[in-house]
C-alpha cells in the first residue's frame, strides 16, 4: 500500500516581489529517498525550509507526516529530523553530549536517551567514538554525528539540506550507504543537493529551476524524458573536422557537441541506422576516429538539456 509521507500542494513563497518558490506540488512516499536537484537559488532550500516549518508559505500548503505545515507546525516539528550543510554541532561537546542535547530538546526522557545513544551510534557507524570531542573530528565524521543528532528522536522524515558539502568522496559514499539503510527501515529521506552524481542514490528526484519543478520522476524516467534517443560517442584527434562532417547530415535531425577529444551525437534515429550513417559521413569527411559507442547521458547532460527545453518553451 502506498503511504504518503510528504504532500505539497501549490506551495508558494514570495519575498516581496520575488517569487522564490512558485506553486510547487509533489508527493513523497514513506521510505523513499527523494532528491531535490537544482542550481543555487533554484528554490530548493526555500522549499525545504517551508516543509520544516522554518518559513511560512505565502500560499498553498503541505502535509508532512500527516500534519499541515500551516495549521500544525508544532506536530510537524516533532516528527522530522533536519540536518543542514553547516552540521550545527557544538564543537566543544562530545559525540554523546551532542546527541543527548538534541534528543533532550525534542523532549526525550533521560532513560530513553541513554538507550538510544548506542543504537543511533551503531546506525551511523560511530561506535567507540561516543566520547570524542566533536570539534576534533574530520568533516566526514562530523557529518555522521550531525545525522545521528537528526535521527536520535526517530523522526518519520529526515530532511538533509546539502548534506555532503565539503566531505571527501569515500566518506560521502559511506554516508549514502547509511542513508540507504535508513530508508530501508521506513524513514523517508528528503535531500537537496547540487552534486549531480549524488542524485543516483535517490529513488526519485525533482529538478528545480527558477522556483518551479521542471521535471519529476525516477532517474531512468528523467533521462528518457531528456534524451528519447541514444547518444553516440566517438573519439577523434580532429574534433572540429568531425563536427563539421556530422553537421552536414540533414537526416540526423539532432545535435552534435564537442567534449574535448570526444564527439557526442544525438539523433532522432534508431541506434543501428544512426551508427551506419555516422560512420559513412565521417569517412566521407576523411575523419579518423576510434571507440564508436552508445553512451548513457550524465545527469549534467540531463539537467542542462531539461533547463534548455524549459526555457525554450
Amino acid at each position, binding site marked *: 500500500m502506498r503511504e504518503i509521507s510528504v504532500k505539497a500542494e501549490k506551495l508558494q513563497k514570495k519575498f516581496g516581489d520575488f517569487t522564490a518558490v512558485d506553486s510547487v506540488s509533489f508527493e513523497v512516499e514513506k521510505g523513499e529517498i527523494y532528491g531535490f536537484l537544482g542550481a543555487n537559488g533554484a528554490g530548493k532550500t526555500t522549499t525545504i525550509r517551508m516543509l*520544516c*516549518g*522554518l518559513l511560512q508559505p505565502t500560499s498553498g500548503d503541505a502535509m508532512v507526516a500527516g500534519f499541515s505545515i500551516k495549521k500544525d507546525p*508544532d506536530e510537524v*516539528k*516533532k516528527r*522530522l529530523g*533536519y540536518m*543542514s550543510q*553547516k*552540521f*550545527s*554541532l*557544538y564543537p*566543544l*561537546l562530545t559525540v554523546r*553530549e551532542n546527541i*543527548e*542535547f*538534541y534528543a*533532550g*530538546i*525534542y*523532549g526525550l*526522557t533521560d532513560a530513553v536517551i541513554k538507550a538510544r545513544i548506542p543504537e543511533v551510534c551503531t546506525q551511523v557507524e560511530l561506535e567507540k567514538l561516543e566520547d570524542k*570531542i566533536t570539534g576534533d573530528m574530520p568533516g566526514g565524521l562530523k557529518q555522521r554525528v550531525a545525522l545521528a543528532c537528526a535521527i536520535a528522536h526517530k523522526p518519520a522524515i529526515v*530532511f538533509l539540506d546539502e548534506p555532503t558539502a565539503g566531505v571527501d568522496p569515500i566518506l560521502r559514499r559511506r554516508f549514502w550507504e547509511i542513508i540507504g539503510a535508513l530508508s530501508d527501515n521506513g524513514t523517508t529521506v528528503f535531500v537537496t543537493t547540487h552534486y549531480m552524481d549524488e542524485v543516483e542514490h535517490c529513488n526519485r528526484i525533482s529538478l528545480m529551476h527558477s522556483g518551479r519543478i521542471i521535471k519529476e520522476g525516477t532517474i531512468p524516467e528523467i533521462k528518457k524524458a531528456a534524451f528519447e534517443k541514444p547518444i553516440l560517442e566517438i573519439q577523434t584527434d580532429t574534433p572540429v573536422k568531425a563536427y563539421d562532417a556530422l553537421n552536414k547530415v540533414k537526416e540526423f535531425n539532432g545535435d552534435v557537441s564537442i567534449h574535448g577529444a570526444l564527439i557526442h551525437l544525438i539523433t532522432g534515429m534508431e541506434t543501428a541506422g544512426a551508427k551506419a550513417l555516422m560512420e559513412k559521413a565521417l569517412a566521407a569527411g576523411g575523419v579518423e576516429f576510434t571507440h564508436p559507442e552508445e553512451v548513457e547521458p550524465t545527469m549534467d547532460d540531463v539537467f542542462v538539456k531539461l533547463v534548455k527545453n524549459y526555457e525554450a518553451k
Partner: protein
Amino acid sequence: MGTLKEFLVPVGHMMKKEFIEMRRSKLVIMLIIAPIIQAIVFGYVATTDITHVPTMICDEDSSSQSRALSDKFLNSEYFDIVDLTRNPQTIQGELGSNRAKVCIRIPNDFEKRIKRGETAVVQIIGDGTDSNSATQTMSRAQLIIMAFSNNIFADKITSMRSVVGTLPSVSMEERVWYNPELASANVMVPGVIGLILTIVTLVIMSLSIVREKESGNIEQMVVTPITPLQIIAGKVIPYIAIGLADIVLVVVVCGLIFKTPFVGSFLLLMVLSFLMIMVNLGMGILISTVSATQQQAMFSSIFIMMPNILLSGFMFPIKNMPVVLQWLTYLIPMRYYMVIIRGIFLKGLGFMELLPQSAALFVYGVIVFTAAIRAFRKTAG
C-alpha cells in the same frame, strides 16, 4: 498546552550544554577569576585618596620655629619628606624630575617675624600637572600651617589671659558617616560589582547567542519543538547563576583585602542585583539579534557599556555633570544600581529606602526583556 515539566526538560538540556561549553572553553576561568582581579585592581587603582605625597622642605631659616613646622609635616602620613634642604635653587630640579610633588618653603625671616609679632609667610609650591592631587595636597598643607599658626596665637593669648580674660571661638567637629575614613576603596569596590555584572552578563550573553547563530545551531533548534522562550531560559539561567556567584566572590574577596564594610542585607543585594542582571541579559539578547557576527556583538556591547560606566556615577559624580547629561543619566540602568549597591554596602539601606531605584530597574528590566524576547522570536522564528 504542555505541562511545566515538558517546558523544563529541554531548558535543563540547554543549561547543561551551556555549562559544559563554559567549562571546556575555559570561559569559566574568565568568569570567575577575571572579576576578582578586576575588583582588586580597581580597589587599589581607582582610589582618589592622597597619602604619602613625596615632599621637599626648603628650610632657609633653620630656626627652632621652622624646625617645629617641619616636624609637623614629618609626622603627617600625608607627606613623605624626600628632601630637606636650605638651598632654594634645588626646588626646580626636584619638582621637575617628579622626585617631589610639593615643596614647603620656609623663608629665612620666619622666626624673626613671629617673634616680632608680624605675619610670617610660608610658601607652598605644588605640581599642577596633576591638578586634582595638587589641590588636595595643598589644602592638606594649608591645614597643617593653619594649626601651627593657631598654636602660636593660642600661646600668645594664654600669656595674656590675665589681661583680656577668655576669648570666644568656634571650632569644628568633623563626623563623616557611612565611610568614616573617606576611603575611596569603600566606594569603588561596590561600584566594581556593577561593572563586572555588566561585563559578565551583557557581553558574554550577546557573544554566546551570536556564536550559535553563526554556527547555525539556532536554526537547527528552530526546527525542533523547543520554543524561543525555552531557548532564552536555557541560555539566560546559567548566566544569572554566574552573575550572582561573582557578586558573592567579589564581596568576600574585597571584604578580606580592603576591609570594605558590608552593613546591609545580603539577601536584598542579591534580589536587586538579579534585577540588574535581567536588564543586562535583555540588552545582551537585543544586541545578539541585531548582530550577525561576534565582532559586531562585541562592538555593540562596548558601545552600551561606555555610558554605563561614565554616566552611572561609578567614577564621576553625577552632580558635577552638565544638566543635560544629568537628565541622560536617568536612562542608564547602572545609575540606579550604583545607588542600590553603595546604599546596601555602606549605609545598610533597606528595600523601602531603595524603592525608587528598584522600581526603575524593574520597569527597565521588564521593557528590555520583553523587547528582547520579541526580537529573538522574530530572528529565530
